[in-house]
């Protein structure tokens, strides 16, 4: 993870539970869903920090109910919640929709985050943005307008496609050479 992602107005590490691989209650692969989201949103900057969580079942070990985008695995797929906040004033995330596949999770949450990136004011968390525009407005943009949703998602992917890991150069052979000992033969 890039250093700035831990404190910037950007995507934060996606919190997950262990998912169905390691938990008897799990219904979905929460960890791999989290990895997919984190990779998709790598280098995403926003009006304020953006926190996501993926829980593998409604017991919600990853506390998806107080995240900007919370994803809860259920037998039939995933439930998406948006606009939660765990700060001074805790806000419970509001139910957005149910989806059936990982790809849909990425599309719906990506589209919502892109909408927030476009319309949110600087320093406005999703819960405040949601309070300002109203849940019906979001539902109209994300759920009822399929074309608009796909366009938002495509715009997000297009903006993030050239994201570079700034630390990648520090792992190149030339950069790590100075840390490799020189062997002298007897």
């Amino acid at each position, binding site marked *: 993870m890039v250093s700035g992602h831990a404190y910037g107005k950007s995507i934060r590490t996606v919190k997950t539970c262990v998912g169905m691989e390691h938990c008897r209650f799990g219904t979905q692969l929460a960890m791999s869903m989290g990895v997919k989201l984190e990779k998709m949103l790598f280098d995403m900057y926003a009006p304020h920090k953006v926190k996501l969580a993926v829980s593998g079942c409604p017991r919600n070990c990853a506390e998806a109910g107080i995240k900007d985008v919370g994803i809860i695995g259920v037998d039939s797929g995933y439930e998406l919640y948006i606009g939660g906040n765990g700060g001074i004033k805790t806000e419970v995330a509001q139910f957005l929709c149910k989806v059936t596949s990982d790809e849909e999770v990425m599309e719906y949450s990506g589209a919502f985050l892109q909408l927030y990136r476009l319309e949110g004011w600087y320093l406005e968390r999703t819960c405040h943005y949601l309070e300002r525009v109203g849940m019906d407005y979001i539902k109209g943009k994300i759920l009822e307008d399929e074309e608009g949703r796909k366009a938002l998602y495509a715009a997000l992917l297009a903006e993030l496609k050239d994201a570079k890991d700034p630390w990648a150069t520090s792992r190149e052979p030339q950069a790590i*050479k*100075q840390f490799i*000992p*020189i*062997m*002298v*033969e*007897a």
Partner: protein
Amino acid sequence: MSNWKLICKLEDIPQLGSRVVHWPERGKVAVFRSSDDEVFAMHDKCPHKGGPLSQGIVHGKRVTCPLHGWNIGLDDGKAVAPDVGGCKTFEVKVENGEVFMAA
């Protein structure tokens, strides 16, 4: 001291940094390069608690041990007062941009 061993190019050592040389009879030897391209070599082992001096910060003709902040003189290998003790130093020279250590 007429037997010199080629270690590396001067540019292989970062300025105000160091490289570690594994020398069979000597163990780990840190080779430092100062800001004015002088080169020094000594055991990569602080006289205090054995800290890796090669990972320390080089300033002037001294290196500060990363463990407890002892300052070691690069040219004489002696700890700077009030600390006492020292590291064994080795003779090095730079010729035509190449670093040699006395065998």
